[in-house]
Every structure is written in structure tokens, then in C-alpha cells.
């Protein structure tokens, strides 16, 4: 199989607190990986390390065979800026709080990166952006500003913004946590649609039933470690580890 993302022996400390301890995982092309676990388990940090918003203290980070960081004697050594930029162009990231640019219209939010970073022609980018907004059901909101949209609509814009870069792999950091339950559904539908189109995705989520439906692989994290990993039927329906069973029971009680 074709590995798009590989993390080997990732270590991360915040001061004296060890947040990730020797953590490895890989994602294959067209695979959807969900990361679940309690607050403070390190899943967001793992995502932030994978997307280079945080630097790992130790370990390898490899995108499609290209090294972003290489472990040398227990320390992560990052590649030179040009290569990191290449790696950055391979993935997109959707935040919990959208982080749209409030001073730009919806269309400009989507067009900004392809034009500035990839230096593509305006006309071509605009056509693609309108196409993406159409897919997200937001074609009529192209000239609106983020504050005029609902949370769900803003999150769809931010998904369109990430897709505009034509990423090979898309990360979601709790994409529905800032939304009320009514708006959660529309985002999950969009992500499901992307999964059907064979988009490679890594999703940190608290939506268990969604994770079971959409993922090829589920990782349960606790205390900076992967406790259990496997197909969703295994991890979510028939967990074997005590900590996983306990967590899933508590999730179900809510």
C-alpha cells in the first residue's frame, strides 16, 4: 500500500510534562483515520505535530516519502525550509474554530492560498473556488463575509479553503466541537462526501457513531499513547483494553 503519512516514535513535551511518548502511526492513500480519546490524551497535539503547528521533540515525520523531520539520536531534526514548504503544500487543515480571515469575503478566503502560495492564475483559481463553494452548497454566499454566516457555513468555507490547495491529505481538528448539534450534521455530511470521493483524511473527533461510519481505521489515545488501534468495528464496537471500554461507556452515557 501507498503510505501518505508516516509518524515514527513521535515525542513531545511541554516543559516537564510528557504529552506524547513514542507514538507511531501511518495513513495510507484514500484511508480515513479517526483519532478518539479523552481530553488531555494528546490527540490534538499529535495533529498539531503532524501539521507542523508544533515541533516534535523526537521522531520522524514523513509525507509521501518526503521527510519533514528525521529522528537523529532521539531528536527530531527538521528539513530545510524549502522542503518543509513542499510538505506543507501536501496537506490541508480544518480547525475547530474555523480561523477564517474575517476581513476577506468567502470567495477571497478560498482563493487566497492558491493565488499567493501556489501562484496560480486568478481566473483558474476563481473557477475552482466557485466550484468548491458549489459543492459545499455555498455558491450564493461567495460575496458574504464570515460574520454573516452560521457556524456550520463558516466551517464549510474553511473546508473549501483547505481543499483549494488540492491537498493529498486533509486533517480535521474536532471540526464539529464548536457547533451546536443541529449544525454538526451538515459538517459530517460534507466529510462523508469527501470520504466517498476517496479523500485521505485524519480526523480528531468526539462523534463516535460518525467515526465508526466513516473511518477505515480508528486510533484510541490516552496519556500520550495509542492504547488501541484497528478497524472501527474492533475499536469502537469490541474494544479489548480496559481504558477504551471505560471511555466509550462514558461517551455513551452522555
Amino acid at each position, binding site marked *: 500500500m501507498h503510505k501518505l503519512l508516516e509518524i515514527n516514535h513521535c515525542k513531545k513535551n511541554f516543559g516537564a510534562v510528557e504529552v506524547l511518548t513514542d507514538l507511531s502511526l501511518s495513513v495510507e492513500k484514500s484511508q480515513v483515520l479517526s483519532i478518539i480519546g479523552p481530553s488531555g490524551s494528546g490527540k490534538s497535539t499529535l495533529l498539531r505535530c503532524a501539521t507542523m*503547528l508544533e515541533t516534535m521533540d523526537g521522531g520522524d515525520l514523513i509525507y509521501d516519502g518526503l521527510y519533514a523531520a528525521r529522528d537523529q539520536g532521539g531528536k527530531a531534526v527538521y528539513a530545510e525550509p524549502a522542503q518543509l514548504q513542499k510538505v506543507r*503544500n501536501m496537506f490541508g487543515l480544518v480547525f475547530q474554530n474555523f*480561523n477564517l480571515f474575517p476581513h476577506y469575503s468567502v470567495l477571497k478566503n478560498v482563493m487566497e492560498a492558491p493565488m*499567493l502560495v501556489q501562484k496560480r492564475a486568478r481566473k483558474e483559481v476563481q473557477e475552482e473556488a466557485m466550484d468548491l463553494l458549489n459543492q459545499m452548497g455555498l455558491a450564493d454566499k461567495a460575496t458574504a463575509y*464570515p460574520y454573516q454566516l452560521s457556524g456550520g457555513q*463558516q466551517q464549510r468555507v*474553511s473546508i473549501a479553503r483547505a481543499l483549494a490547495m488540492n491537498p493529498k491529505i486533509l486533517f480535521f481538528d474536532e471540526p464539529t466541537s464548536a457547533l*451546536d448539534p443541529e449544525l454538526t450534521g451538515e459538517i459530517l455530511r460534507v466529510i462523508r462526501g469527501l470520504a466517498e470521493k476517496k479523500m485521505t483524511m485524519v480526523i480528531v473527533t468526539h462523534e463516535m457513531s460518525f467515526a465508526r461510519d466513516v473511518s477505515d481505521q480508528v486510533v484510541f489515545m490516552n496519556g500520550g499513547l495509542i492504547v488501541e488501534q484497528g478497524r472501527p468495528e474492533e475499536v469502537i464496537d469490541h474494544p479489548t483494553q480496559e481504558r477504551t471500554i471505560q471511555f466509550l461507556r462514558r461517551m455513551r452515557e452522555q
Partner: protein
Amino acid sequence: MISQLFSDIGSIWSKYGTVYLNGIANTLLLSVVATLIGCLIGFICGILQTIPCLPQDPFPKRFLLRLIRILIRVYVEVFRGTPMILQAVFIYYGVPYFFGVVFKNIWTVSIIVVSINTGAYMAESVRGGIMSIDPGQFEGAKAIGMNHFQTMVYVVLPQTLRNIMPQIGNNYIINVKDTSVMFIIGFQDFFAVHKMVSGAVFKYFPSAFLEMGGYLFLTLVASFLLRKLEKKLEGKSDYELVNTDQLVMTAGTYSYPGDPPYDEKNRDFKGDPS
């Protein structure tokens, strides 16, 4: 008394009206140009000061960044901490003293002095403005592959500009008044006209009265126009509005209450998450 005052002002004005108007024009031109250049200096300092300095960067880069920060700090403290009238004298006589070049045009040296002075204040305003932008905006820009310069120019500074608009206005109004100290090196501003005219006709109070009215008029008009400009900037992108909906955490305006976004730094996290 009052009629005497107005007839005095009338006689001064009929004789020196154009001189006063010329002074006003000079004051306005100097303060507008110097405020704009000062803003530019402020924004450049703001960008330079906020280049991230990471422990894994190579030593020369970290050294350079530290040096830049120290130099900007020194610049701000020196020019914010000394009177502009002294700075004018210092530069006007200091440059020929050290470099042997005499300023041929009084405009050059005046613009330099007031710009540098304004820049020192603006550097701090811009720094504060940048710090007030939601960290999510930096991450959002980074996630779509923007470098520091692009992030600053296209994402952070436009929002900063809107936030510090009142301070820019404030600086402009201060400059309208404070360019009056440039008479010390012979700049013919509005106040310099007062010195000249009152010295010629010995009517100190009527001229001062005229000046008071003139300056107040200039600053009031500036206040009014700045308010209009602020309104206009708000009109199209009033992203503060979104805060009214408490249910929806909105683009870019959501700030984490106290703790950083990632759960490991949460106040509940004590090292053992279970």
C-alpha cells in the same frame, strides 16, 4: 475689549492672512506626510519584531532576530523618551557635525524628525495591535502554507490596521499640534508665523487667539474625518458583530478563555489525564 480684539485680528489678517494660510498649509503637509511615514516605520518595526524566533533555528538567524529586537527597543525608548524639540535640534546640528553634510532643505530634516518620532510611537501601537490578533489567524495562515511575510501582509496587518486606526488618528492630531516645535530649526509652520507676525506688529494676544482658533479648527476637522474613516472601515467588515451570537464561536474572533487551544495545556491537565 472684545471689539478691540476682533479689530486687531482683522488688521493682522488683512495684512498677513496669506502668511498664516501658508503656515497652516505647511503644518498640514508636514503632519500628514510625517504621520504616513511614521505609520510605515511602525508597521515595518511591527513585522520585524514579530518574526518568530524558535530554539531550533540556526544560531545566526536567532542572533540577527535578537539584534533586530534590541535595536527596535532602543529606537522606541530613545525617541519616545526625549522631547521632539530636542530631537530636531539634535539631528539638525548633529548630522552636519558628524557627516559634514548640511541640510539644504528644511523640509527634509523636518519630515525626518517628525516621522522618526511618530514611528517610535507607532511601533508600539502596531506591536500591541498584532498581539491582539487571535493566534488562530496565524495558524490558519500557516496551515494554508503562507510564510511570515505573507501572513503579516495579507492576514494580520489588515486587521491590525483597523484595530489601531484610533491610535493613528491620535498620532496625527498630536502631530498637527507638535510640529509647532519645528520652528526651532526654522521650519515655517503655523506657529512660526505667529512668532514672526507678533514680533513684527507687537500684537501678541490677537495673534495667539487666531492661532488657538486655527489649531482647534484643524484638529476638530481631523477628528471628524477620522471618525468617518473608522465608520467606513467598519461598515464592510464589522467582524465584531459575530460576537453577539454566543452559541456560535466565530471566525477569528474566538479567543480561548485563559488557556491555549490544545488540551494538554488545559487547566484540568495535571500530567495524568485519566
